[in-house]
């Protein structure tokens, strides 16, 4: 369904973001792109979302080359955008309509869905996300978590086949994070393809996603299933997703690999 062939990207012809990344994703799959800060996760996701175009290499969606040129074709633009939804890391970026309700209606109205159905979709999504009370609020008067919910809702109302989520659990309290993980699993069970960019290893574990690891040199280091990747401590250390850590318990000093969720495991255990 999604295929990247030797994709490279640089910002302002100076700052490298991706280097020769090749990757395949199948329909209905859960894929997590993981990597340290600045490794190119968001750039990769934006290329898959047709928001940036590779400096070199190719990106194919359903076998069709996605480029600035192909997305200028009316038929393909509609085909691509109604199937691929993008949730930005920073919800402030995503929200540009006067109120929450307008935000949720924007996508369906673009798809020329009838106003009644668009409203139905918006209210159903608000109910599911528990944000019905916010419908008339402007986005700049929402809390961080509320903004993120609205951002996710604004994409779900378009019912895309592929959901691209950039750091989806960032900024949520633990309860909402749990709700969001359940929502992602439910959407995947309903047939949606999920592609997330994250450095939250516990999220990868919970989703049991197929994982692509980006190194700090912006290369795809390894792909594999969650268990394989999360078990490869040497790889995770190399790409700076976990680190060695020394601390004391009374008079005893421990050295162990540290990641808040998965690797807080003492050598003596």
């Amino acid at each position, binding site marked *: 369904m999604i295929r990247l062939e030797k994709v490279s990207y640089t910002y302002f012809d100076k700052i490298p973001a991706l280097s020769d990344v090749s990757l395949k994703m199948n329909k209905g799959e859960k894929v997590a792109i993981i990597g340290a800060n600045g490794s190119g996760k968001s750039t990769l996701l934006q290329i898959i979302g047709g928001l940036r175009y590779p400096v070199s290499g190719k990106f194919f969606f359903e076998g069709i080359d996605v480029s600035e040129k192909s997305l200028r074709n009316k038929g393909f633009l509609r085909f691509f955008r109604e199937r691929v939804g993008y949730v930005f890391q920073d919800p402030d970026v995503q929200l540009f309509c006067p109120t929450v309700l307008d935000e949720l209606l924007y996508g369906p109205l673009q798809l020329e869905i009838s106003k009644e159905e668009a409203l139905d979709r918006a209210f159903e999504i608000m109910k599911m996300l528990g944000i019905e009370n916010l419908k008339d609020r402007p986005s700049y008067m929402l809390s961080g978590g509320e903004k993120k919910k609205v951002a996710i809702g604004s994409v779900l109302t378009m019912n895309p086949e592929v959901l691209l989520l950039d750091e989806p659990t960032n900024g949520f309290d633990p309860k909402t994070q749990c709700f969001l993980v359940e929502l992602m*699993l439910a959407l995947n069970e309903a047939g949606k393809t999920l592609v997330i960019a994250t450095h939250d290893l516990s999220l990868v574990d919970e989703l049991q996603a197929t994982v692509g690891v980006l190194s700090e040199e912006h290369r795809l280091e390894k792909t594999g299933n969650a268990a394989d990747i999360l078990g490869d401590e040497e790889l995770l250390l190399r790409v700076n997703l976990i680190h060695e850590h020394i601390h004391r318990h009374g008079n005893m000093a421990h050295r162990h690999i540290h990641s808040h969720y998965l690797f807080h495991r003492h050598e003596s255990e």
Partner: protein
Amino acid sequence: MENKLPSFLLDQPSPVSFKQGKGRIKMGFLEEGIHHLAQLIKKGYVQWELSSGSGLFQKIDARVKVLFLLFFVIIVNLKRDLLSELYIGGFIFSLALLSRIRIVTFYSRVLFLGFFLGFLIAFPSAFNVITNGEMVGPVIRFSKPINFWIYHIPAEVGITREGIYGVIRLTLRVINSLSLSFLVLYTTPFSEILRALKVLKVPDTFIIIITLCFKYIFIFSKTAEDMHLSKKSRMVREATHAEAREWIAGRVAFIFMKTRLRYEEVFKAMIGRGFSDTIKLYGFPKMRTGDCYAGTFLLFTGVFFLFI
């Protein structure tokens, strides 16, 4: 959870195929303009931030460069003959070459702005309505001179030799001033310029205004570009001109509001780290011998241009 999903989210997409749409999407003029403006500002910002190349001017102390800029801008605007302006232009060109600046990008910006800020503004003064002199290009002839209020329009209106000379002189002055400014800006990081201004006793209020304007422009352009990307991710068809105008009109206020809020947060962060109304910067290192030589050379060159 699945049974909590709205039913429309369980709908399967239509079979994979797409109809080749007739025609191509054209990005609206206003929309494209906003996108390119944001890109341009951001590119300029990054270029500025990364102005640490290994050319001649990059190695010179920022204080010397700021004094050079002020001194030469005064000289450029004092000179009255075209040849001197051309010599100064040639000198700046050679400095840009030695500083390994991308000459084409550099002069395309200088000439673009020079055309609007120099030539277009000065062009009306080429006519004998404003500048009297020897007529070299008659444009229109009236049956008799027209006197209106304090204005006198002669029977024959056209371009004069003295007018052309004035327009060229002003355009060259603007181009030289812009080249000097861009040369310093392209070869000096913003923080260095601020520190040089501080050392040269420019009032703090002025430096604060420059710093905050700079930050504001960047945040504004980033917000505009992000909004453009966000809209693009949900655009499935070409917007009509009317829709594009309506969207932009509705978003201008919104962008300002968002930018202002973000900007206020930045300002709060500055206050949170102890910012008051005085700017405290760590001092410049002592001037190196090379900087003193460069400063002396530029001073004597300036004096030379002043007297030729």
